[in-house]
């Protein structure tokens, strides 16, 4: 199960890394005759078996969005720095997942969008983990008043549903910002909102571990607080942090998609999984165009991959807004019964 999840994630990341090579078209290129065109048919049968070729769409009626299959167009492999693309002379693109409202290739945008979405989630996860480690470490190993202050703040952030906090912070900033600014901004917001989830567990572990014999031994051997934290306590929290990071990553993917979907994330011209889903917001069109839901499918795959990894390591993927509260409640039981 763990392997299955890890491979799923690896495939998604690989697709993102190889996006320029794997995508048949430039993601921003608009095929103005192919607005909302369905996926191109790829076939190998045409009077006997041939090399894979496509039957591209030709516009019949722009208003009713009617397309007819055009004659055969051969595929070109390993040309122009791409794995596969349709013969450019034929003027008929290979649209594996159809086209969006502007006639752009959904598949190519999905691959390029993965870079932004996954990159954002990855950086934000790293940030949240780092901040969480710092806060949790300071909380668990520091003086009581530091612990008290940090704990209250993390608790407050944990109680607020993160999506509302992210929405509020993002919505009050200027709406139109360049994509790179949005990237930095969302990374910061996600990292700050995700950090308490890591911090709380780290604090709990540090608090129990600091009483252990090996810590007392290290301290009496003259180790300073910093050395204790980094050399002795960091390994103790590794497992917890790994699980939390694995759960934060898909949560950030979903958060990006949600914010961009409702219009406070990336600008619509930037391909991300969230901005692409905006095309699916048109309910009257969606019924005839299931390929517009492709970003939702890959979001599902990313979350599933992470959940499988976590479940495979023997933990239930309790995903309701972070798994920490249940852990705390269970940990509270022995104390309250004693």
């Amino acid at each position, binding site marked *: 199960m763990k392997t299955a999840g890890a491979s799923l994630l690896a495939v998604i990341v690989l697709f993102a890394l190889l996006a320029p090579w794997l995508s048949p078209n430039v993601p921003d290129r608009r095929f103005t005759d192919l607005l909302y065109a369905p996926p191109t048919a790829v076939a190998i049968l045409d009077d006997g078996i041939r090399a894979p070729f496509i039957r591209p769409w030709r516009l019949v009626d722009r208003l009713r969005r009617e397309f007819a299959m055009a004659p055969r167009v051969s595929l070109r492999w390993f040309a122009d720095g791409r794995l596969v693309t349709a013969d450019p002379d034929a003027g008929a693109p290979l649209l594996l997942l159809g086209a969006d409202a502007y006639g752009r290739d959904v598949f190519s945008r999905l691959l390029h969008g993965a870079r932004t979405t996954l990159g954002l989630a990855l950086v934000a996860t790293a940030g949240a983990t780092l901040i969480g480690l710092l806060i949790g470490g300071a909380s668990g190993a520091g003086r009581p008043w530091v612990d008290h202050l940090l704990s209250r703040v993390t608790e407050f952030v944990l*109680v607020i*549903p993160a999506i*509302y906090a992210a929405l509020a912070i993002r919505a*009050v900033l200027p709406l139109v910002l360049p994509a790179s600014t949005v990237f930095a901004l969302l990374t910061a917001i996600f990292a700050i909102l995700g950090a308490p989830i890591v911090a709380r567990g780290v604090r709990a572990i540090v608090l129990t571990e600091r009483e252990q014999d090996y810590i007392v031994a290290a301290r009496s051997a003259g180790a300073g607080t910093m050395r204790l934290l980094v050399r002795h306590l960091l390994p103790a929290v590794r497992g917890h942090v790994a699980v939390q990071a694995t759960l934060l990553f898909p949560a950030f993917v979903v958060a990006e998609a*949600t914010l961009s*979907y409702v219009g406070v994330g990336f600008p619509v011209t930037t391909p991300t999984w969230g901005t692409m889903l905006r095309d699916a917001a048109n*309910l009257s069109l969606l019924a005839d165009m299931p390929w517009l839901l492709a970003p939702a499918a890959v979001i599902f795959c990313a*979350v599933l991959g992470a959940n*499988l990894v976590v479940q495979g390591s023997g933990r239930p*993927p309790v995903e309701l807004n972070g798994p920490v509260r249940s852990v705390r409640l269970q940990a509270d039981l022995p104390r309250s019964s004693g």
Partner: protein
Amino acid sequence: MIRFLARRLAFAVLLVVASSSAALLLTRLAPGDVSAELGTGATREQIASLRARFSLDRSAPAQLAAWLGHAVRFDFGESFLYGRPVAPLVGRAALNTSVLAAVALTLATIAGLGLGLLTGTRRRGVLPVLVRGISLAVISMPPLVTSLLLVFVAARTGWLPAGGMSSVDIVDASWSAWAVDLAWHLPLPAVALALPIAATFERLQAQSMAEAVQRPFVVAAAGRGVPPAGLILRHAWPVSLQPITAVYGIAVGALLSGSFVVEYVTTWPGLGRLMYDALRARDIYLVAGCAAAGAGFLALGTLAGDLLHALVDPRVRESAR
């Protein structure tokens, strides 16, 4: 018990005050204000009078203090966006969200616990394996995905309305017709919201049930000759409920954040939608009112979850006394 309740209620009040104050300050300090809604043709006097009407000419702390002073008397100010007092607007949206959340939680509980009992007590068989697989998949579907998927299915088949809370022609229909119409619009968003939570409940119930049936007292009951059905329902099940009631508190948070997305996708006129519109228009008092309502919802839900947890667990019940 009284002390426990008092402490939790104090926390609830604190949460409501802190959230609404933070929301108000955040909106106030954001670039742009309601005067932008007047358009470019507005005269300086118009802008000044509008800003004065919403206390934007005072400092942010002074405005916050004044608003809090009024809010304790249930006067939450006026919405610029709708030109009406905030309280009834927020109240109506909060009611809509509560209906959605309550139905979703009920659905999730019935489906999750029922299926969890099945998969927790039977390892083999087509049905348990199927349920387990589906549950693992559904748990990985955020409300954004489930609602889009269901809207797609609804739009494709026409079985259910794809969005909204009522039909356009329902305004002056009778009460019963209105209820039927609501029942027609409710299933889609409620199921979209319930699915991931139901899957979580199913996984938790299955896991805790599988552990519970191996407890010594259950084995002892089996030795006394208690039939399997009684063994599971009367003996093992109550014990296995603990971990589930422990997450009911977070389930409320998940409902609230999930309902934002579901409301947005299915155009359900709830709190999330209202707050979003208010934020974008810099409708400062409406934002604060929505935040207060959301925080209240969250605090009461968490409290209800904890009480439920105490109800099924005698150890927590005792310690809370």
